[in-house]
């Protein structure tokens, strides 16, 4: 078949629905892809299959009643969801947080970042075809951190540990030793993980120059988190807003250049190494003292009496997936009038089509894997 009579061949595009039940969609997410052979012509994401009406339920529940629901937003990093919600309500009600509670929160947030990035790399390799081997490494390390979460908060995944004005309860005995052992052993695991993956030619061939995201498109599409930094934008909310006590720790923010899938993978590995540095400093400097402010403790004991003043607030943090924001409108009653969650993975999906057009269908699955979506947060 020479070139010219190829063009006279009438070809059709194929409509493929990578449906809600698909091994590669990290949950119930659907992509209606229009294919010309293997290359993607159009890709429309369809969501809502896990829309659990968290915002409608929160409107007739007390402020503390919604705290366990924030665990189920991004169900891989439950502590950072609590952190964002607690910060927003503290800003609304004007509660201040004692020193020790701030350090506890930083330790929990950075441990959650380790869990999230390790899991993401495992699932990204799953999408690349290395079925389940990197996930086994990732989950072996995750179990160690989940044991720490369980010994402190009582539950492996749904910690419900933060309260407005501090945390629910102090460390359990032996927790700090656990964190110290994580600080020692995790870099060794990361070196092993990098030896396993980073120089792997198949990974490099499949991930480099795939799903490239330019800096301007990333900013205008509201992309946040490691995806934004992989495209070369030095914007980390821990440095920009300096919320909680993040400006006491010195850590660097890794930046990528090309903005392809390999950059996003490597930025997350470097971010894990920075998180371990933060953990080391936090464990060294943690003071003794109360773990919750007296007003916060009273609010936790009787949530119906916790009435923040009328008004509205928008609090945001650097969650492992990006900028997680809470917009709360209070009318003075113990129940919020409007409760909105700004989920990072929902907005990071806006440009999934731009990154996938022109690439092969297999690359679209890898690009979706590198966007790091969790459906509980996408559909709320």
């Amino acid at each position, binding site marked *: 078949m020479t070139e010219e009579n190829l063009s006279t061949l009438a070809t059709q595009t194929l409509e493929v629905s990578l449906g809600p039940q698909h091994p590669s969609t990290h949950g119930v997410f659907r992509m209606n892809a229009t294919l010309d052979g293997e290359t993607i012509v159009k890709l429309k994401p369809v969501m809502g299959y896990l829309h659990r009406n968290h915002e409608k339920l929160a409107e007739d529940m007390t402020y503390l*009643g919604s705290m366990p629901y924030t665990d189920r937003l991004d169900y891989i990093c439950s502590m950072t969801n609590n952190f964002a919600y607690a910060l927003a309500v503290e800003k609304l009600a004007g509660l201040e947080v004692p020193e020790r509670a701030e350090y506890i929160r930083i330790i929990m947030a950075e441990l959650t970042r380790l869990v999230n990035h390790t899991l993401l790399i495992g699932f990204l390799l799953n999408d690349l075809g290395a079925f389940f081997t990197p996930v086994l490494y990732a989950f072996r390390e995750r179990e160690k951190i989940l044991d720490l979460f369980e010994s402190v908060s*009582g*539950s492996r995944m749904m910690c419900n540990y933060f309260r407005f004005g501090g945390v*629910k*309860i102090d460390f359990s005995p032996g927790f700090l030793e656990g964190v110290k052992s994580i600080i020692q052993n995790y870099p060794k695991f990361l070196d092993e993980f990098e*030896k396993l993956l980073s*120089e792997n030619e198949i990974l490099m061939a499949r991930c480099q120059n795939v799903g490239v995201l330019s800096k301007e498109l990333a900013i205008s599409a509201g992309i946040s988190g490691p995806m934004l930094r992989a495209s070369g934008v030095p914007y980390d909310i821990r440095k920009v807003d300096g919320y909680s006590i993040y400006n006491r720790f010195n850590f660097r923010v890794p930046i990528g250049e090309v903005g392809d899938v390999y950059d996003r993978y490597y930025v997350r590995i470097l971010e894990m190494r920075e998180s371990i540095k933060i953990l080391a400093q936090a464990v060294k400097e943690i003071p003794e003292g109360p773990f919750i402010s007296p007003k916060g403790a009273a609010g936790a004991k009787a949530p119906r009496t916790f009435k923040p003043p009328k008004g509205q607030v928008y609090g945001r943090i650097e969650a492992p997936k990006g900028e997680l924001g809470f917009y709360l409108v209070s009318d003075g009653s113990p129940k919020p009038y409007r409760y909105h969650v700004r989920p990072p993975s929902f907005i990071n999906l806006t440009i999934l089509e731009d990154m996938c057009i022109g690439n092969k269908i297999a690359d679209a699955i890898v690009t979706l894997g590198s966007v790091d979506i969790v459906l509980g947060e996408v559909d709320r």
Partner: protein
Amino acid sequence: MFGFGVLKGMLVTIQNFFASYFSKDHLTTVQYPEERLSAKERYRNFPFLVYDQAPEDPRCVACDICAKECPPKCITIVRDSDAEGKPLKRPKSFDIDYSICMNCGICEEVCPFDAIFMDHEFELAEYGRFEDLMYHKDRLLKPNDHFKKIRPTDATRIDAKLAAKTQKPAPPVGN
């Protein structure tokens, strides 16, 4: 040469394979039914009611705070009343729907009488939904020493508090 990265990866896998014969921490599997992980003290699964002497008078006084504070509303309490209808400080029926409970522990936090706590029991798979998973008062009540066995530090703190409260039953009248 080209395949060196892939070989390095395979080297890691081989190291892990042989390491599982020598070093203990590479053998991470817990053989569940025979070998069990020791439950962490603060582990919380489903709530249970505590009684001190006899199951007839639990610590719960049917004040309904936990039923109001429970986010998914899975607790239903009916207050007991004696012969001529005067309400008593005791629940006639206390139902927790285990198929709705989200193990969040808020009922334990807000209970002013230390009557409800989160249990460590997790082997609760059932065949029937409505008849098996609706826990009534008799299945929820557990003695205080069960609570002491699973959560020693909290139990000693609460027993000390309750003991202190019973020492001075009523404030000295009139002085």
